[in-house]
């Protein structure tokens, strides 16, 4: 049995808007295993953003428990959780979310600063990662000097900085044209197949699910169905 990275045990998350209860996630159990490529799909309002925050250990559930490497995140202090998150999970956002005042290299170095790597080590690693995503020539460009696709590649390099167990991608192509979007998906597919990275992707775009091994369809805060796609099906290498 493959090692579990994060496990959700009958998790519920309810928001309050004024006095009104809004159940966003109504009882989901799922487990992300090392080496898999999982897609969480569903229409908007199905609770996938909330679920993604929970899977990314950014949020604490209202009910149920979340285990990050078999440790209950509700028992961790905020600082420990931030530290563990920085080490174990790499985030890719729809809005790229790069720090605007830092250049590409600075953005990729940032997670390593928080983990206390020394300057020589983290710079060398950041340069290597940027070359890997094809931005070796643009390391000193600020985010506003890069195209959307390039920004997202910086974000991918940043997500890989601390060599995390899992990459969590929230609508990674949502703000990109179809060509850039395909390049980003190919890059993620490559990371999964060639580098053995665990990837969890949240999307509403059903065209992207064929990159995944396991597709979980959500509706109204619950798992509607789960689908396994053949493991020797090679994608993204076209």
């Amino acid at each position, binding site marked *: 049995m493959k090692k579990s990275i994060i496990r959700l045990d009958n998790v519920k998350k309810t928001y309050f808007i004024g006095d009104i209860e809004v159940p966003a996630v109504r009882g989901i159990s799922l487990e992300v295993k090392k080496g898999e490529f999982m897609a969480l799909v569903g229409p908007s309002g199905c609770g996938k953003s909330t679920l993604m925050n929970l899977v990314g250990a950014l*949020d604490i559930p209202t009910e149920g428990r979340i285990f990050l490497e078999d440790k209950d995140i509700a028992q961790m202090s905020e600082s420990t959780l931030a530290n563990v998150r*920085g080490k174990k999970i790499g985030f890719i956002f729809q809005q790229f*979310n790069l720090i*605007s005042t*830092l250049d590409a290299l600075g953005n990729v170095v940032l997670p390593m600063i*928080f983990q206390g790597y020394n300057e020589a080590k983290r710079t060398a690693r950041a340069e290597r990662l940027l070359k890997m995503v094809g931005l070796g020539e643009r390391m000193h460009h600020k985010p506003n000097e890069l195209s959307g696709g390039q920004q997202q590649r910086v974000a991918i390099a*940043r997500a890989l900085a601390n060599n995390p167990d899992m990459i969590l991608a929230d609508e990674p192509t949502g703000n990109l044209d179809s060509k850039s979007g395909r390049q980003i998906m190919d890059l993620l597919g490559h990371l999964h197949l060639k580098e053995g990275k665990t990837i969890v992707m949240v999307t509403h775009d059903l065209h992207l699910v064929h990159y995944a091994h396991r597709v979980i369809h959500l509706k109204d805060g619950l798992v509607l169905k789960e689908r396994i796609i053949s493991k020797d099906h090679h994608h993204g290498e076209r």
Partner: protein
Amino acid sequence: MIKDYTKFAFRTFKVRGIRTFLTMLGIFVGIAAIVSLISLGQGLENAITEQFEMLGTNKIIISPAGTFFGFGGEASSDLTEDDLDVINKVKGVKTAGGMLFKFANVKFGNEIKYTFVIGLPLDESGQIIQDLSGFDVDKGRDLKEGDKYKVTVGDFLAQGDFFEKKVQIRDKIEIEGQEFAVIGQVARIGNPADDSQVYIPMETARELFDEPLKLDFIMLEGVKGIDMSALAEDIEKDLRKHREVDEGEEDFNVQTFEELMDTYSTILVIVQAVLIGIASISLLVGGVGIMNTMYTSVLERTNEIGVMKAIGAQNKDILAIFLIESGFLGLIGGVIGILIGVGIGKLVEFGAAQQGLDILKASFPWYLIVGALLFSFLVGAISGVAPARQASKLKPVDALRYE
């Protein structure tokens, strides 16, 4: 890590140049004011101390009550030659001398101006007056016994800063209509009032101004090794008896140089404290400015804070990032403020020298500079505490969702 966060702060300053400058403005106005005020105050104190040390501490000045160092206000009761005789008889007095001065008209060529005319005793007691007043003839000769209508002139007159033409030795000037021959020029003392004076023999002054007995103040030197405050008390006692006044109701002041120095220092400290208090208000306002900017910054960068937390920043990292930023806002403001303050200090020094007040040297001791730097950093950092705490406490999900 602190090095990295410092780099972050400087990048932010660069991106938000105008806002950064405006925020620092509040700090550097305050620091500039404080640095220039302290440097000038310190310079003034140094000048005073230096002058007193030059004169020695075994001196006492006696002046009529209601005046300060002989100047200002009508004396309630004049000192006279009789008082000088009493003082000369007190045990421990080495030499004592008196001085008379009058604000009088002085004519040179066709120009008539008013200045202080000093009557100097020509016996050995004249020397102590010269020592204590710090003047020395550097060209021509001193007044000596037997001189009658002879005058020595201050440096302003000699340099042509008082009258349109320079007053040279062997020139004639008229004082209250009486012609005097110029025999000497007094070396520059360093302040315009003293350098504009003219000096005539005491006896001539008594005749000219019709003041047979009056002395504006009396100065004396104690014998070597004597306790000056004890001597001052003895003089006070004898003068009380002679002038028939009770203790506590003296119409005269007896001050040792040490007391005089303390008096000056105390006044200076009070004046400085008031000025620095006022300048501090501007620093306080500057601090509030930093706080305001930091709150705005936290709000603007909420999303960024969320991202940093998502990629592993702990609360203490966020706290440090914002504290360092606000601390440097203060510190850089302080550096600029110090530069401006030093500039103002030097400018005032230069201006004073232009006016003849060249004893005033702005002084910048290391503790003033270091203190100002430390203080400006602290103002910045403390102003940043509340905004930085707010930033560090943001929940990553909420911060990420913030647009």
